[in-house]
């Protein structure tokens, strides 16, 4: 496992999200209103909706397809729904974003 730099905090809008593409699927990075960053698989546990396209509020994102609400810290769906979008480790250092992943990076 490596910490791979994928961009800067400023690249993600507040209450917004950007996608990192990997060989095994997309990862969604979210930035909350208070500038915390979270990473989840960009697949809703319900029917695979792209979570990166949802509305970010607090430490949660609402899936654009059928409005499941996913907790950004754990990746778990908020009850009564259940399922997990699997959280990944992400760090912000000096305004730069590092994602824990297996290989090197090539900027989009």
């Amino acid at each position, binding site marked *: 496992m490596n910490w791979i730099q994928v*961009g800067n905090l400023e690249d*993600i809008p507040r*209450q917004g999200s*950007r996608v990192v593409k990997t*060989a095994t699927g997309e990862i969604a990075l979210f930035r909350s209103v208070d500038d915390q960053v979270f990473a989840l698989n960009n697949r809703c546990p319900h029917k695979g909706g792209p979570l990166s396209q949802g509305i970010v*509020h*607090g430490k949660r994102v609402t899936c654009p397809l059928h409005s499941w*609400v996913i907790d950004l810290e754990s990746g778990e769906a908020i009850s009564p729904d259940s399922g997990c979008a699997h959280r990944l480790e992400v760090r912000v250092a000096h305004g730069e974003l590092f994602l824990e992943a297996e290989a090197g*990076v*090539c900027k989009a």
Partner: protein
Amino acid sequence: MEQDKKRLVVVGNGMAGIRTIEELLKMSADEFDITVFGAEPQPNYNRILLSPVLSGEMPFQDTVLNDWNWYEENHITLHTGKTVTKIDRMRCTVETEDGIVVPYDRLLIATGSNPIMLPVPGIDLPGVIGYRSIADVEQMLAAAQPGKRAVVIGGGLLGLEAANGLSLRGMEVSVVHLCEWPMERQLDKVGGGLLKEALEKRGLKFYLSRQTDAILGETAVTGLRFKDGEEIAADLVVMSAGIRPNIALAKSAGIHCERGIMVSDTMQTYDPKIYAVGECVQHRGQTYGLVAPLFEQAKVAANHLAQYGRMRYEGSSVSTKLKVTGIDLFSAGDFNPVAGDDELLLQDAARGVYKKLVLRDNKLRGAVMYGDTVDGPWYFQMMRDGTDVSEMREHLLFGQMHLGDSGHGAGASVANMPDTAEICGCNGVCKGSIVDAIVDKKLFTLDEVRAHTKASASCGSCTGLVEAILANTLGGDYSAKPSKKPICACTEHAHQDMYKTIRARGLKSIPELMQALEWKTADGCHVCRPALNYYLLAAWPGEYVDDSRSRFINERVHANIQKNGTYSVIPRIWGGVTSPAQLRAIAEIAERHEVPTVHITGGQRIGLYGITKENLPKMWAELVEAGFVSGHAYGKSLRTVKTCVGSEWCRFGTQDSTGLGIMVEQMTWGSWTPHKFKIAVSGCPRNCAEATIKDFGIVCVDSGYEIHVGGNGGVKVRVTDFLCKVSSEAEVLEYCGAFMQLYREDAHYLDRTAPWIERVGLPFVKRHIVDDAEGRAELYARFLKSQQYSQDDPWKERAEGKEAHEFTALATIV
């Protein structure tokens, strides 16, 4: 202005007459100066509920349907205790017994009916009473001392209710009936037998197959003699041997009558200025004695009085329930089988249940139920729909619950009913309307449901069903406190006053608003943020900066997300008119991008489906290059203006519907609204553009343009309400802009125009758009002002690089 109003006079302050007025006020609040004459001294009360008053289960006040205030609030002149004795059709006036003369432009006769008083000796003796009015009930109660004897002549619905009521008051009651069993018009022999037994257990005595010869007594009733000579004692005789339409007044005015006052399908008598509704009329050979058909008549009469001229009354089928607490009985249709019919029977003496269904050609023709009537409305619905029941025949008798996986009691059987199942027969309310009202209007109690839908507000026999629907729809919330419902869990504030609060307090951004109104979360949620963003946008055009983070994805990226996460792209095609050059451009772009599906949409445009997000800006750039703008097919905004070819090509066309549609679309495109907004223009009343199921529909006619509003073609179809007619294209534009602006300022976010209009009422819209020219001009001006800022093509901006981060990945890890 006041003098110009037409005068409507109503004779008969009863259930059918006043219901007609209610329907009329709903459609057209100030078309008429209305005067009502009623022979009874009370305001309109619910005659159906006289039996509970008689039995002591309900006080009279609870039966009043329209109290004195109602007449006053609606500016209705009411004369109670006044009997109209003359109609002068030459001068168009009516005159009362005591000489009041009132002129009319339209007259509505709703005089109801009278109990038939048998022509036997002694019928005029004190103590012989008909059963029709609260005065009759009061007379009966005065006579009803415990231990005294009452005889009810007539074992029909009314007679049995009277008998039961008097018996509950402690009288010794006998029922005299001509036939072998009671309620023979609603029940077969077995059902009638069960009913008789149950009533006998409650202390009633039956004299069946008996005919009354005379009522005995010198100064007051003392007894009764049958044809066979037997005599019985009585202190009170209630005549309940049927009703006779009250046509004396109409007849004396020379209006054609047979058994009842003859009316056409538009509820007009032979004198076209005179309408008639209720038990006094005869329509296609039928007279009616239950309220459900009368209420249908009322709707039709009101529709014609308001000059909509659309509806026809085509007769009704009726079902009956007996309102004797503790006895469940239901009957509908033709329950006496003829040769070739099938009869399905279920008889369970121990449980006291009897059901009979009559089938003809695999369709239900009739039903009699005793003891267990839960499925009555379901059978009645299938009967009226002509449903083929061959598939479910073996389970049919066991009721609807047995069709699915059963076991949840009455609640579940309600859940299984289709939305179209009629729940309240009196007011013609089906399950869907009740559920919608509960959900949309946030209703929590039976009274609220009654107030909003009228379900269970008349005879009350569907109360149990309505309660089950409430419980079922609300789940655990049933009977919680009613209140203005908060937008979401982040706040106590409701949608209601958000727009006004924002304007009044000068709130200009979401964070500012959340702070001022004490939001409970830091930055709201996916429910409140889009709503607030909309309200702010509508309140401060040109000033408020749209917050893309508070937009649903479709509106944020200006394309519709599809189920696999790709998007659709639908360029605007003005008024549905395109050209070879445009088609070629779209074709080439579609080919270049290998678009998997090209589809002609319902809104007369071309949809390109299966576009990946990264590809959107590129495709837009090409479309913009070819002269297209966004079709906003993804937004809570103006969608399309659908048109027909109108006078340019169509042999029926009366106006240039296509050209007008394009003008309307150019004025309205790009506007944000509480929910999506669709417009159509048809060139003539054949209405090929389906304008009467749009939010704003224009139907061209020879003399101008009819404007229709509040239609919806979605999950629940709603036909538009007719708003008004205008004579020029410029007026169409003004009314359209003003209507959209009123909707933008008044409706809740995510309200379509249809539920909005149902909530605020058409008169509200008329008041602002039709009656108030100044207000309309202001609304229109505000609409145009906000349009100055909303007609920048979002596709062009994004093709030029705006919000590029939306469309590109942050990084790719290999």
